């Protein structure tokens, strides 16, 4: 009876390397791979976060709805024109230079609006591109 039990235990020990050894329920030899595995996973997660930060390009906003995107482009464009025209109007009021400053600044505002729209669209494109490739080239 003891012989059978010992043989069984020995075979058990041989096959699965101290998994269910009654003397050492939680042996350090089996605990170490677990913690080092955890350390590996923590390291991997930290690396992933660091890589995400290094990319610097927002990748989280892909879920912005189409409506929000369209409105964003529209407001960026219109706001630049309004600001440009407003600056020109103020210059005209202060300097008394007819409509000219307002007209010129209106054009400038138009250009700034186009610039804003290009920036926004480039940003959207960078976001939709596959992360990790040349996503941070646009900016």
């Amino acid at each position, binding site marked *: 009876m003891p012989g059978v039990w010992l043989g069984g235990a020995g075979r058990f020990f041989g096959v699965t390397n101290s998994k269910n050894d009654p003397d050492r329920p939680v042996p350090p030899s089996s605990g170490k791979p677990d913690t080092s595995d955890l350390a590996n996973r923590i390291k991997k997660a930290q690396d992933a976060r660091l890589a995400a930060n290094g990319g610097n390009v927002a990748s989280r906003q892909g879920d912005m709805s189409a*409506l929000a995107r369209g409105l*964003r482009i529209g407001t960026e464009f219109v*706001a630049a024109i309004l600001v440009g025209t407003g600056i020109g109007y103020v210059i005209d009021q202060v300097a008394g230079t007819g409509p000219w400053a307002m007209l010129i600044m209106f054009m400038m505002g138009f250009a700034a609006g186009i610039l804003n729209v290009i920036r926004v669209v480039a940003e959207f494109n960078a976001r939709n591109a596959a992360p990790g490739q040349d996503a941070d080239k646009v900016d």
Partner: protein
Amino acid sequence: MADDPIKQFVIYDIFTFGTIGGDGTPESGITLAFTNSALFMVLTTGLIAAYLILTTRGRGLVPNRWQLSSEMLYEFVANMVRSSAGTEGMKFFPFVFSLFTFIFVGNMFGMIPYFFTFTSHIIVTFAMSMMVMLVVVIYGFVKNGPKFLKLFVPSGVPGYIIPIVTPIEVISFLSRPISLSVRLFGNMLAGHITLKVFTGFVVSLGSLGFLGFFGAVLPLFMGVAITALEFMVSAVQAYVFAVLTSMYLNDAIHPSH
């Protein structure tokens, strides 16, 4: 209340603190008043503070459901700031988090019937966006000094183009607070008016009699759909505001384009 779609935005005084200046007659001087707008701002701030304090009170290493929800909120905003402004931007995390939760809860409050939506007033959104811009400009100059002005001079541009490009860049920069505030204000104002108009159709068609009663079903469906849309817009606009804030802060931290 249901008849006029603009009436929901009326600001009235709840109580006044007193008047500065003026000659004693009504409508003269500056009256400091606690308005319904202020009331809902206080309620919003109180709700956020109570939520965060109560849910994180346990400080469990293994969070319970409530703590998990506020930790998810933290992680959401923290990832947004990190991805837009980098790890350096995390020093502005409290600022962005406050703005995001304030706008988000304020928008959501506005979706409750008879509640006031303070984000539907452009002065509120403009004040918030000017705050963002002031932080960007002041921090940009404090951190980078005159190098912050490189924001307006793109690198790699030939010298004779710079006089043309720089004013455009300046206008583009100055248009940011406008577009930031107008976007949030416009979305909230337009959405609430649309909601009110469509649900107003239900009442006016329903009072027409039998045929109108059936006709009222259509705007009722629209009202339900627009309510769902408005919830989405409220959340998305708070998100957009916070994302753009962190992107502008990124310009203050790394001013070279």
